[in-house]
């Protein structure tokens, strides 16, 4: 062996050494530097989570009566990880099961196949390790047939599962909301933070959505260590499920029922069909929502166990009136004369009108080339604002708004320069909460719209192209040629000078009409509540408190002030007096409605409204509060496509007050007071309703007092151990579009009530004559 060879051996030694160092370095990277990442992967690799869903809290009305509760359902499930191992892949078992539950075996096979791009429901989009529910609400006999013969039904199980139950059907559906399976996206983004698991049900609409964190509770998780073949080797950790908190509402079941019934009766009398209607009852002293109803409604139980595509389509179909949409807080439109309360405040607060000053209520008002008529085309001579409210004179308010518009520079298409516009009407409307969300604890609230000069210009900037296109092409889709021509003319004008703040529309604003204003019933109720309570805007709130399953008050939701009306107490008092006159004085537009009302005991303050809607019947409005001298409740009812306010909405409001105060029936709110105390929830889960507070008629055998035994939550907890194995690493296919779209609310502009400027772009609600 020579020296050159030795050198080469030395080189080999260096090579070997460097290779080994490479291994050592790579080992360091893998085990120390990247260790955490891989350990996490190892965890999901190794640990299967068996989730015991927490029992969701109930939603209770102000007296503790359940609006949403849980019931147990016997569910038969097929565990594919067992049936797939059978020689015939479970075909024989499924055939036997089909005969027990009485549905075709083919149907069962479809239900347990895995969803994929080509495989549409029915199919299973959960984890392959998780039992697939194939039949819900089976009879105990059917369940026993499965449980008692494990040899004939290997891989088939029957469990009790908790499902949402709505004891009052569609009552308050828009407020309660519904649940849907968690989406993959939500799991990825919030799964850890919120404790979602595969197959978790989460609130996607209404209170179920807003208070999902409180209601959902914490799922129990048993973490099992398994080997590569999914065999359980041991338990890594176990946490017991913690039931969700109950939500106690300000909403009162009896008032809600009365409101919905009265609306439904009115709709029925009008001929039914796709008609819509809504009612809002607020506690003016707190903003508490005592009732809020919208028709058509729906039974949220269609969402239990997954809504079918067909059902969902029916619930969003305009031909059915879009039952999913709440007209009370998700729809907006012209407020009609109910808005005169706002205009009166402007006239007195900003434009210097005096309480006993008289203004001419003439037959017509000429503004430019437009002629505005009083509603009934009559002249009432010079009258005070009080009387103008009582008889609902349009012209006086039109005149105020027109003058204010002129003072702001009119069209402002001259040379200028112009001082900044005051825009008293738009400012007052905003100060009273219009044009912005009230902040109610429900998702998807509409803001309505208040369009001022700057707003009009911004909208025009956005829409001028479409106006100009329409001016050129017309409205070929409009069957009525004269209407189409009118629209085209309007578009042609808007194309050229749409940015100009229209004096006619500004005048119409004061009487709650025209393209510059759209309000939701909730906003109107909130504004009337502020007028009633001396000027405080409260955030409308459904939830009063969250109470733990064992009865402890976890959280209360105190009234939240969102603003103060920029109106003096004198003016507010004048307004209240005027509104009381509407329902009590001779000639008052609502006096007829309340002719037989005990006005001396429970004075009513009200304002009727009849909003004109292009191409439809008038929208009947009725806004009110009571008692007028010491207000407690504000009630607003809206019935589009019906007629005059006093004729349709008024009687509904009256029926709601009758229910509240117990006129000719049991009082829903004895003494006209909402219950102050929270209902007591016993540790065993039963609920004792709160005692009536300050009852005028203590003998009245009203529902409060008698304990209402709701489905005890604890019973559900123990009865239900739906061992739903949601494993960490399951291949989850995207859930079907219908079930996943949370809060799919059709855009408000499609609602029949919507007359926002945006909607008006292509179909102007009120074209100039």
């Amino acid at each position: 062996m020579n020296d050159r060879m030795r050198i080469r051996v030395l080189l080999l030694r260096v090579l070997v050494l460097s290779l080994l160092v490479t291994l050592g370095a790579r080992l360091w990277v893998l085990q120390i530097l990247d260790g955490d990442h891989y350990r996490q992967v190892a965890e999901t690799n190794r640990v299967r989570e068996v989730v015991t869903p927490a029992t969701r809290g109930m939603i209770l009305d102000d007296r503790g009566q359940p609006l949403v509760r849980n019931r147990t359902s016997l569910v038969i499930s097929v565990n594919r990880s067992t049936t797939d191992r059978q020689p015939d892949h479970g075909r024989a078992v499924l055939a036997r099961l089909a005969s027990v539950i009485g549905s075709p075996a083919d149907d069962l096979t479809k239900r347990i196949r895995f969803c994929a791009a080509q495989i549409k429901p029915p199919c299973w989009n959960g984890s392959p390790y998780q039992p697939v529910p194939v039949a819900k609400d089976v009879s105990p006999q059917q369940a026993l047939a499965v449980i008692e013969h494990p040899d004939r039904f290997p891989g088939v199980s029957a469990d009790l599962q908790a499902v949402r139950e709505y004891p009052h059907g569609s009552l308050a559906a828009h407020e309660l909301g519904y649940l849907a399976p968690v989406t993959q996206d939500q799991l990825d983004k919030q799964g850890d933070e919120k404790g979602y698991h595969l197959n978790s049900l989460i609130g996607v609409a209404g209170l179920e959505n807003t208070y999902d964190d409180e209601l959902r509770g914490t799922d129990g998780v048993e973490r099992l260590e398994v080997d590569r073949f999914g065999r359980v080797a041991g338990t890594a950790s176990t946490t017991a499920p913690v039931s969700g908190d109950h939500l106690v509402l300000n909403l009162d079941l009896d008032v809600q029922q009365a409101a919905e019934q009265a609306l439904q009766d009115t709709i029925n009398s009008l001929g039914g069909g796709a008609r819509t209607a809504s009612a809002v009852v607020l506690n003016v002293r707190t903003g508490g929502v005592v009732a809020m109803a919208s028709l058509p409604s729906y039974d949220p139980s269609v969402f239990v166990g997954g809504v079918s595509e067909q059902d969902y389509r029916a619930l969003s179909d305009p031909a059915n009136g879009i039952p999913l949409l709440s007209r009370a807080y998700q729809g907006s439109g012209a407020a009609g004369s109910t808005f005169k309360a706002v205009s009166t405040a402007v006239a007195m607060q900003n434009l210097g009108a005096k309480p006993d000053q008289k203004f001419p209520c003439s037959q017509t008002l000429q503004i430019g080339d437009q002629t505005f008529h009083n509603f009934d085309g009559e002249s009432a001579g010079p009258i005070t604002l009080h009387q103008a409210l009582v008889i609902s004179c349009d012209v006086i308010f039109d005149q105020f708004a027109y003058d204010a518009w002129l003072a702001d520079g009119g069209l402002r298409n001259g040379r200028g320069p112009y001082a900044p516009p005051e825009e008293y009407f738009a400012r007052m409307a905003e100060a009273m909460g219009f044009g912005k969300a009230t902040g109610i604890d429900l998702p998807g609230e509409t803001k309505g719209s208040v369009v001022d000069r700057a707003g009009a210009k911004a909208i025009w900037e956005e829409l001028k192209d479409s106006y100009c296109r329409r001016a050129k092409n017309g409205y070929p889709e409009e069957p009525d040629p004269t209407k189409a021509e009118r629209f085209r003319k309007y578009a042609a004008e808007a194309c050229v000078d749409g940015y100009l703040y229209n004096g006619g529309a500004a005048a119409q604003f004061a009487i709650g009409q025209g393209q510059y204003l759209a309000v939701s019933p909730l906003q109107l109720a909130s504004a009337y509540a502020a007028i009633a309570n001396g000027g405080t805007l409260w955030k409308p709130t459904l939830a009063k408190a969250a109470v733990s399953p064992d009865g402890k008050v976890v959280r209360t939701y105190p009234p939240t002030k969102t603003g103060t009306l920029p109106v003096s107490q004198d003016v507010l008092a004048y307004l209240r007096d005027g509104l009381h006159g509407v329902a009590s004085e001779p000639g008052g537009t609502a006096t007829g409605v309340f002719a037989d009302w005990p006005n001396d005991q429970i004075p009513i303050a009200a304002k009727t409204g009849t909003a004109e809607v292009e191409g439809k019947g008038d929208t009947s409005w009725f806004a009110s509060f009571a008692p007028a001298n010491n207000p407690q409740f504000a009630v607003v009812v809206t019935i589009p496509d019906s007629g005059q306010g006093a004729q349709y909405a008024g009687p509904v409001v009256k029926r709601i007050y009758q229910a509240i105060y117990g006129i000719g029936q049991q009082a829903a709110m004895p003494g006209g007071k909402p219950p102050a105390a929270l209902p007591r929830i016993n540790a065993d889960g039963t609920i004792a309703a709160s005692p009536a507070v300050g009852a005028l008629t203590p003998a009245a055998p009203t529902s409060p007092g008698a304990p209402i035994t709701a489905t005890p939550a604890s019973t559900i907890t123990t009865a239900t151990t739906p061992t739903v194995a949601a494993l960490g690493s399951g291949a989850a296919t995207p859930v079907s579009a219908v079930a996943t779209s949370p809060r799919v609310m059709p855009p408000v502009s499609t609602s029949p009530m919507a007359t926002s400027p945006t909607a008006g772009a292509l179909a102007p609600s009120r074209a100039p004559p």
Partner: protein
Amino acid sequence: MTQEAGPTALRSSPVPIRGRIGQLRDRASGRHSPLRRLDWTLQLCVIALSVIGALLVWSATRQRLDEAGGDPQTFLKRHLLNLAIGLVLGAVATVVDYRVLRAYAPFVYLGSLVGLVAVLVLGSTINGAHSWIVLPAGFQLQPSEFAKVALVVGAAMILGEKGENRNTGIRRSAPGHGDVLLVLGLTVVPIGLIMLQPDFGTVMVLVFTILGMLAISGAPRRWVLGLVLCGVLFGGAILEFHLLQPYQEARLTSFASGNKASSGTGYNVSQAMIAIANGGFTGRGLLHGQQTQGQFVPEQQTDFVFSVAGEELGYLGAGGIVVLLGVVLWRALSIGFDSQDSFGALIATGVVCWFTFQSFVNIGMCLGIMPVTGLPLPFLSYGGSSMFANMIAVGLLQNVRLRSRSDPYAM
């Protein structure tokens, strides 16, 4: 070669009259006994690696055997038995003077070819390769493992044959073209036979071992470079024309594309990496690796045994194994460095190349930096043939050591 007079001096010294047994005992225990002159560092490291291997194999298999109702210690016992048999074979390889062995090299070589042909006729297919002859009592023979030994000995014989003769004092000249051609010829035959199995990993071991030996032997540089170039072209051609079995190609391409698929080859590697990373610095403890005990890593007692070390023994243990392997290779190279002739040096070189390639590829595969090739980790992976071949190779190293120039009492 200055101290070659040493043994002669020993022999010519007056020996006191003793019994023959006494002589043997002296030879065994005396200061100059061959036992003492063995490279004990090397030997102890090898034994340590094998025992660690036995524990890892035990940990990797006991759960599964227990579940199957078998004796959970089966693989532990077998690995230790393999070690014992291997040590005996190694002792034989140590005792026979390698210069005598040189004479038998052609027979060793031919014997290995017979084995490789036999496996094609009689063999069983495991994991896609037709590499095993199943023997009674649950034993299997993998002739390609022994082919490694045979080829190392054969190539060393040819490349070192021209070497210096101690008696003539002629300095060895580098191997010529003829020698290189002969070595390549000798190599191509077993490679061809192993390709037929096919066992791509073993082929690669042989290629790199021969390349290393050629480079060290001082063969003409153009041969070495040319062969490397050929290897690259051949590798390209293999992929281009899909000459490999689909499963082999999948292994290579899945590595190259960084595909950590949840099934197939990528699955093995990603599971192995997860297991190793799960060990952290100190490991989960022997028999307590969740990934290992959950049997997430396929082939974890053979090709992926290092993942068991990584998870259960942590960086300390797995790094320790790399260090032990390093010591083995270091000592082997020292033996080659100190060898009195080229034959010994080339044997040491061949063994080092063989062990290094196999260790690096195997561990690198578990760490995700090498493609999956199905090579066992020397001494640690379960497998009788591999253990025997490795131990014979270690025996050869000791053989060279006993007769190396730095040992004044070399026989």
